[in-house]
């Protein structure tokens, strides 16, 4: 399976491990919040990289004390109309200062992909049955943005006043 980073398909280096399955020794693994909480002490001491997957009703505040140990937080879109993960990504980045990878999974359509990147997602697992190329196309759909977020895209407001500064 591949994941998308900036629209480009890449091999998925992470393994999602079911709650009742043994953890592989060396792989990068993603566990559920429930497993993380139950096995927290052991998991924190694991040598290989570890990530936690949050369901859309699970706030990132539940793992705020563990973010130093986590390399990845995966946020679920159970339905593409459930937009909580957009706020959760912003809370992770802006409020909790998380610098690791934020990954989206579940029913993620290309029509949301640009929004996800603007909110701080790094990678997504494309929805089953959708054209993978569509996600890269979606990133080219807009060149103008109104909202300042913490990505590097300049907003209309910044461009306007930059332009005026040059003109002045």
């Amino acid at each position, binding site marked *: 399976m591949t994941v998308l980073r900036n629209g480009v398909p890449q091999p998925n280096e992470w393994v999602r491990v079911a709650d009742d399955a043994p953890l592989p020794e060396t792989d990068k693994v993603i566990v559920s919040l429930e497993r993380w909480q139950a096995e927290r002490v052991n998991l924190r001491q694991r040598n290989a990289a570890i990530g936690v997957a949050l369901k859309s009703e699970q706030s990132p505040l539940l793992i705020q004390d563990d973010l130093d140990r986590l390399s990845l937080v995966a946020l679920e879109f159970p339905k593409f109309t459930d937009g909580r993960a957009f706020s959760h990504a912003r809370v992770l980045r802006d409020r909790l200062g998380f610098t690791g990878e934020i990954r989206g999974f579940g029913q993620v359509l290309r029509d949301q992909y640009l*929004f996800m990147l603007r909110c701080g997602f790094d990678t997504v697992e494309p929805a089953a049955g959708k054209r993978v190329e569509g996600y890269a196309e979606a990133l080219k759909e807009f060149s103008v943005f109104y909202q300042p977020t913490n990505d590097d895209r300049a907003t209309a407001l910044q461009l306007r006043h930059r332009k005026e500064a040059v003109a002045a």
Partner: protein
Amino acid sequence: MYRYDQFDATFVRERTAQFKGQVARRLAGELTEEEFRPLRLKNGLYLQLHAYMLRVAIPYGELSSKQMRKLAFIARRYDKGYGHFTTRQNIQYNWPRLDDVPAILEHLAEVEMHAIQTSGNCIRNVTSDHFAGVAADEIEDPRVWAEVIRQWSTLHPEFSYLPRKFKIAIIAADKDRAAMRTHDIGLKIVRNAKGELGFAFYTGGGQGRTPIIGPLVKSFVAAEDLLSYLDATLRVYNMHGRRDNIYKARIKILVQALGAEEFGRQVEEEWLRIKDSVLKLPAEEVARIRQYFAPPALEKLPARNEGFEAKKAADPDFARWVQANTDDHKVDGYRIVTISLKPVGGAPGDASADQMDLLADLADAYSLGQIRVTHRQNLVLPYVRQQDLFDLWAKLGSAKLAEANVELVTDIIACPGLDYCNLANARSIPVAQRISRRFSDPKRLAEIGELRLNISGCINACGHHHVGHIGILGVDKKGEEFYQVTLGGSSAEDISLGKILGPAFSLDQITDAIETVVDTYLDLREGPQERFIDTYRRLGIEPFKEKVYDSLKERRSAAE
């Protein structure tokens, strides 16, 4: 009015192209209807009873004559020659085809218009006072801030998939002409003790099946903090608003569940973390937007125009229209004209393409090319010289646009109802038509005075029935249409929710019931200065209830 710069223009073109792509993907089978539906709704496209319906955004109700001509063109070319102005200051077309919508959007983009966020679970088109910029009582022009909010809310990356729709209204006067506290966020522009400009946030109001008057959550947010406080409010809602039950998903339910105080505390906590971030509103951007709304250079005129006074004295019909349909202007010698889209027997809020073209011409001739849409489904010409009023009135009259009934009982708000709407339980327009015919005598209309009558075809309350002085709600009883009456609502600064009168009426009974309510008021009022709503508030619902159901019984026994 605001004009697009290169960035706004590019943005709308890009959005138009994106939607064209979404339609193509639907037709090619890349999107199922389930996936396409939320995407088309975010672009104002519904599938209604008989056809698709496209709702076009008119941000804070402001239109140029050029835009109005384009709306007429679209009505002729892609629809059946008419459009419907809505309580959200927008216009909707009842008959477009799915495969024509991309072309319609391209036409709209040519005149700086679009259908972005006129539906769907996102931040809807922001509404405002239709007298903004010309009202004598405003402390600031709310359009400046409505435009700031329009840009902030447009394709917001974090808030495009909210639990439910989200409506914002903004006013800047004590008189509330925008039903501010019936919104998810109602903003009132205020000044603090130091004279600084800011916003009072009334958060968690709404209509629908659970009507709630928005509580004051924060009494002063400084101008530069507007966007960060909005962001914080929306973030709390997006994370904690209910998603398990569509009827409990609006922010009002969250605010009620937490209490306004606790909700405000959670927003405050979030806000303090982000208020000094990139969201701080730069003064130069506000200044840039403000330029577009600078008061136009108007000819200096005397406050009193003798010719106008003489015409009023000579023509009682004209005088009645001036009385009902014009308002004081902040500039001497001018009046604000409200054009009623409620002709006797007509469909409230509808205008034909020919009427739209004429209105564009009249706006050019008499009102600096500017038009406003009101949330009561009428239109406004904001800059009319007193000396032009008579000619304007005559020309409006030739196009069935001079009904002298603004704020009177036949100035009815009505949703499209079961004649068009997929959600409706009962028809609204035929009820409005019957009532307006019953009260068509201009003298009687004037004698009754201010009376707001609002009709919704279902509990979603698009016709604002909860806040009508008289409200009518269509309900379905085993496939038949019935109508429940409420009394005592108001959407203005004296906001209140109506109370149910009693058992519902059939379509054949409803007009008689309304007439009895009105006659009871005329009998009971302390004089013509006491409005219907004031009489109701003085006496309560009982005297009305008694009369209406007694007279219903009498009619029944007379029929037997």
